[in-house]
């Protein structure tokens, strides 16, 4: 068992792609760093916190990126965002087999203000364009910093989201919710609550994440291969039908959650008999349980990537 969570972004790439196959665009030696951080007298990184490029996955040409959570929380600045968007557009130009995004980010890099905001929106637009070009997009969320803010939204623009239970996926961060709404609404220091609300198991039960694996690079790689193999057989772009089905699912989910103030209540409503025991289950046991109960099990119209 080799932990995905413990690896840096630069170590995750060779762990996910076929050995020695990855070619990096704008590598560190190109020194394309953030002009904004330099102006703020803040440390920069030679790759602005993201590795982008192209490699082989199971023999197919797959474009990919890995965000470095330890640098500024993986937050997206102008250069970081441009590297992501550029890689995505090149994937379309070169008719990639798929795109694999290893996400770990707090969202927009506030230091870079509007440049950061624009960057994230360009990434979202580019992801949807990749899908429209018939190329599946798979997002992997398994790092210690989670995937929040604009990148949380971006992750859900992918066809398939793969998570470990250690991973977290959300829009607003826990501290933000607590600051805005008070500690009774959300105690951001209650780590168990944070993971119940944003962690992989919850996301999987709610249908925001399509695949859950143990924190193991081999498991993540296998899941990515499986996901891509599945997706290439169908329609990966957005369709009206798919969007309407998604809207239905969301409406139902909102309704089913009415009055609940705690994730375990939602799981109970899904039919899980021992909600308190869910967090301690190992991946296999959890998946067996979830198979029977998770939301979004209704046959999904093609295009949403729901399984």
């Amino acid at each position, binding site marked *: 068992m080799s932990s995905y969570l413990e*690896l*840096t*972004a*630069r*170590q995750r*790439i*060779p762990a996910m*792609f076929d050995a020695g196959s*990855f070619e*990096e665009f704008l*590598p*560190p*030696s190109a*020194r394309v760093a953030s002009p904004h951080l330099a102006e703020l*007298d*803040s*440390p*920069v*990184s*030679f*790759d602005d916190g993201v*590795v982008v*490029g192209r*490699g082989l996955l199971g023999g197919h040409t797959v474009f990919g990126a890995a965000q*470095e959570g*330890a*640098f500024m929380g993986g937050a997206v600045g102008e250069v970081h965002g441009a590297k992501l968007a550029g890689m995505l557009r090149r994937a379309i130009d070169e008719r990639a087999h798929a795109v694999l995004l290893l996400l770990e980010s707090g969202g927009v890099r506030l230091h870079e203000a509007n440049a950061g905001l624009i960057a994230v929106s360009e990434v979202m637009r580019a992801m949807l364009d990749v899908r429209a070009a018939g190329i599946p997009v798979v997002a992997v969320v398994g790092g210690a910093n989670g995937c929040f803010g604009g990148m949380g939204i971006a992750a859900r623009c992918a066809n398939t989201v793969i998570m470990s239970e250690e991973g977290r996926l959300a829009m607003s961060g826990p501290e933000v919710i607590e600051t805005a709404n008070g500690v009774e609404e959300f105690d951001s220091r209650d780590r168990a609550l944070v993971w119940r609300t944003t962690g992989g198991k919850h996301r999987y039960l709610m249908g925001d994440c399509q695949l859950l694996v143990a924190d193991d690079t081999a498991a993540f790689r296998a899941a990515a291969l499986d996901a891509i193999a599945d997706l290439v057989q169908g329609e990966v772009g957005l369709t009206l039908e798919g969007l309407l089905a998604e809207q239905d699912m969301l409406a139902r989910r909102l309704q089913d959650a009415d009055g609940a103030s705690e994730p375990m209540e939602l799981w109970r409503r899904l039919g899980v008999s021992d909600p308190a025991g869910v967090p301690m289950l190992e991946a296999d046991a959890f998946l067996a349980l979830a198979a029977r109960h998770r939301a979004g099990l209704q046959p999904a119209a093609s295009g949403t990537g729901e399984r």
Partner: protein
Amino acid sequence: METLQFRFGQGSRPLAGNAQLVGVVGSGNLEVLIEAVPLDGACEIEVHTAAVGFGATWGAVMEDFHARWSLADARISINDNGATPAVVSLRLDQAVESLISPAAPSTGGTP
């Protein structure tokens, strides 16, 4: 931020291969980019560090680094976010080893 530059002439150990990067610019950490560059046998090191006023310490670390490896025609570029000398020396050695024996998986060299 402070920028420091060091140059060591007459190295005896040339490097070959693609540029490598080790480390991340997290709190208490640093990244080290190492490249084989013709420099008349010298080793040049440039440090951008968030910890200001430790020039003498960096100098001592680099002297010992050079005494260990005596690299020739090597450029080392560092972005530092407050790492202790122990971590700096560790990353420098990891950077050199990533070029010498590329099959060291834990150093996180360029994929």
